[in-house]
């Protein structure tokens, strides 16, 4: 990587004598590469090399011990993933996580940001602090608090439910509820973050547009629909894309602390599965193969998202 960066395009090979002008040109062309070198190096070492290594590993069977031999198994890891029900279920669950998170990371924060925009002084800050608070709670602490709140025997939530005359719900034990519960906890942590971004974008909208529309007699809803939402569209698309690409990853901590993928794998997702294969059962090959599938899938989705973003986001000049 560094050699490319230093010689760069336009360098003279073959040891031919170089004209002074060409040399000056080479030096100038090399400067941007020099600036980029540290970043490129870090990217190569931490992203691309591991990626290539994972790709290689996905064709081997290996338990991550230096003394154990790596056995080449061809496509066997991929075949096993296709036949085992684990991967299929994890993929479906991942989709559910993403779809479930979107309302919590996009719709709700957007509404909160727009509605609190016109609140007066201290009230707005109090309100926003309350919304923002979950974000700064450490994830493991949040997970444990929710475990207590949702406990079937002595949790506050079930206490309230039975007080209202409902049956108790095993939020983390019943497989019909567990996935929804984890989506909620992950989303609850995200609301603050998204609201912050939306509020900032919303505050950045030039007030003269809004005033002009008001003078033309636009209603509050019309202002939101025709002025605010189009101008917020880059942020909306960004957060939507982030949720799609990273949402399921953000749930990892809660899966790990609260359910371990259970009950009966109802809350597992591809990222938890990767970790389970790799670091719980030490199956590096299988984990890498699953990783490659996930990587390819999400690379495709990211590509499509970026295209859509370019096409549909509206930028104020």
């Amino acid at each position: 990587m560094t050699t490319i960066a230093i010689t760069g395009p336009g360098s003279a090979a073959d040891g031919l004598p170089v004209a002074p002008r060409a040399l000056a040109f080479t030096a100038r062309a090399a400067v941007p590469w020099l600036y980029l070198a540290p970043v490129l190096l870090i990217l190569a070492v931490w992203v691309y090399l591991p990626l290539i290594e994972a790709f290689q590993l996905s064709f081997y069977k290996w338990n991550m011990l230096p003394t154990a031999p790596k056995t080449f198994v061809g496509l066997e890891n991929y075949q096993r993933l296709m036949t085992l029900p684990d991967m299929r279920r994890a993929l479906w669950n991942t989709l559910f996580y993403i779809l479930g998170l979107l309302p919590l990371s996009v719709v709700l924060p957007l509404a909160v940001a727009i509605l609190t925009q016109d609140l007066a002084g201290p009230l707005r800050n109090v309100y926003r602090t309350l919304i923002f608070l979950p974000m700064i709670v450490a994830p493991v602490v949040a997970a444990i608090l929710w475990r207590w709140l949702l406990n079937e025997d002595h949790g506050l939530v079930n206490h309230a439910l039975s007080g209202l005359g409902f049956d108790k719900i095993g939020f983390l034990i019943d497989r019909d509820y567990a996935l929804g519960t984890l989506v909620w906890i992950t989303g609850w942590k995200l609301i603050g973050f998204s609201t912050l971004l939306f509020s900032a974008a919303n505050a950045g909208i030039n007030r003269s547009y809004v005033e002009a529309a008001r003078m033309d007699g636009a209603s509050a809803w019309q202002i939101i629909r025709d002025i605010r939402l189009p101008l917020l569209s880059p942020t909306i698309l960004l957060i939507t894309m982030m949720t799609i690409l990273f949402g399921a990853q953000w749930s990892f901590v809660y899966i790990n602390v609260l359910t371990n993928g259970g009950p009966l794998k109802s809350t597992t997702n591809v990222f938890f599965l990767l970790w389970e294969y790799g670091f719980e059962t030490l199956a590096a090959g299988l984990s890498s193969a699953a990783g490659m599938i996930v990587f390819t899938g999400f690379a495709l989705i990211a590509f499509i998202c970026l295209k859509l973003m370019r096409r549909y986001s509206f930028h104020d000049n």
Partner: protein
Amino acid sequence: MNRRSILKQITALAAATAFWPVAAHAEMAASVDEPVTITFYNYNLAAANAGADATREMIAEFEAQNPNIKVEALPVVVSDIFTRIQADIVAGQQPDVAQLPFRDLIYLATDIGANALEDMVPEAELKAHLSSLIPQGLELGRYDGKTYGLAYTFSTPILYYNADLFRAAGLDPDKPPRTWDEVEAAGIAISQKTGKHGFFPGAYGPVDGTFVYQAIIMSNGGNVRDGNRVTFGEGEAAEAVVKLRQMVDNGAHARIDLGSHADTMASGNLGMFLYTSALMASLQKSAKDKFDLRVAAMPGFGDKPTKPTNSGSALFTFSKDPVKQRAAYELLKFLTSKYAYTVITSKIGYLPLRTDILDDPQYLGEWVKQNPMIQPNLEQLDRLTANVAFPGPDYRQVERIMMDGVREAIFGKDDPLEVLAIAQEQAQALMPQD
């Protein structure tokens, strides 16, 4: 041979010697004459219960008696301790002593380079120490005729029960259930009459390992494997699981959070709890002045004698340096001494691996008289059956597939026998070929 291939061989050789015991009979130093620090990976220290305090107490006492040896104790959660050691060895940080569960025994001996005590310690010295320990216990840490793990803390599953809930359900707390049919009846009575949970075994959670599950199926005459053939999905092993499923379906066996069963028991919401005796001290503390906690032997299937398997751990040494090996061995000896087992049994609840202290008033004599609750565990010691570990490089995947299958069979909606048969087939594909 060109230069590159020679270089390759040298690096390969260097890598090999770095990870394998250097020579089979490199004996340790005779004594520790200069200050030395050894690391001790311990999982009791990582738990927020009585085990951590007792372990700290023992290490402090050891350092006081051996001023030249400093023990750097690292608390690591039981479910992570093996991967942690593997990672540290790969990173070149050789651990000296580690407390590890038995499930990784074969792998530790063949691939991780744990020292065999027979190769490290002079024969007479080793014999002198081992002869005072229980042979069934020592057997658990042996592989291929050599002692890689010195059995340390261990226990068998015992049935904790809440006598108050028994009374409330109209049951006689002085006659705890002895068979699974009786557990079933009591479980139904408790859940119907008190609204609390009937029965739950600590067999399915992330830190539970497989020992309670193995104890249940072995007591019915089943086993998880026969040589290189997995057998958990057939015969008596499957039959025992079907019994548990039936108890889930009729409400005797609770459906609670697999990871917080002990909290449910401690808070008085569970009638019967089958789990390691290592929790005895902690549960007694929680139950004090709140409910009447009692213990009984683990239940059996009809008249068949139960086969309690062990949970718990052995001490493994990895030191390559002769002086550190001596220091490590001194620690091993100390932690299995009369003094240590007095602390381990009375303050944590594990079984003493030496029976010579049970009647000795200087050690456990008085305590055993005052604490009749240790009796079921002591009685089970005679029938102690070794926990079965899986062989081959994929042993952890096999274990995972088995436990996933068991959970699905017991808590799922499908036919348990079918679920187990499918899991067995998947697991078999990962076993070593004969």
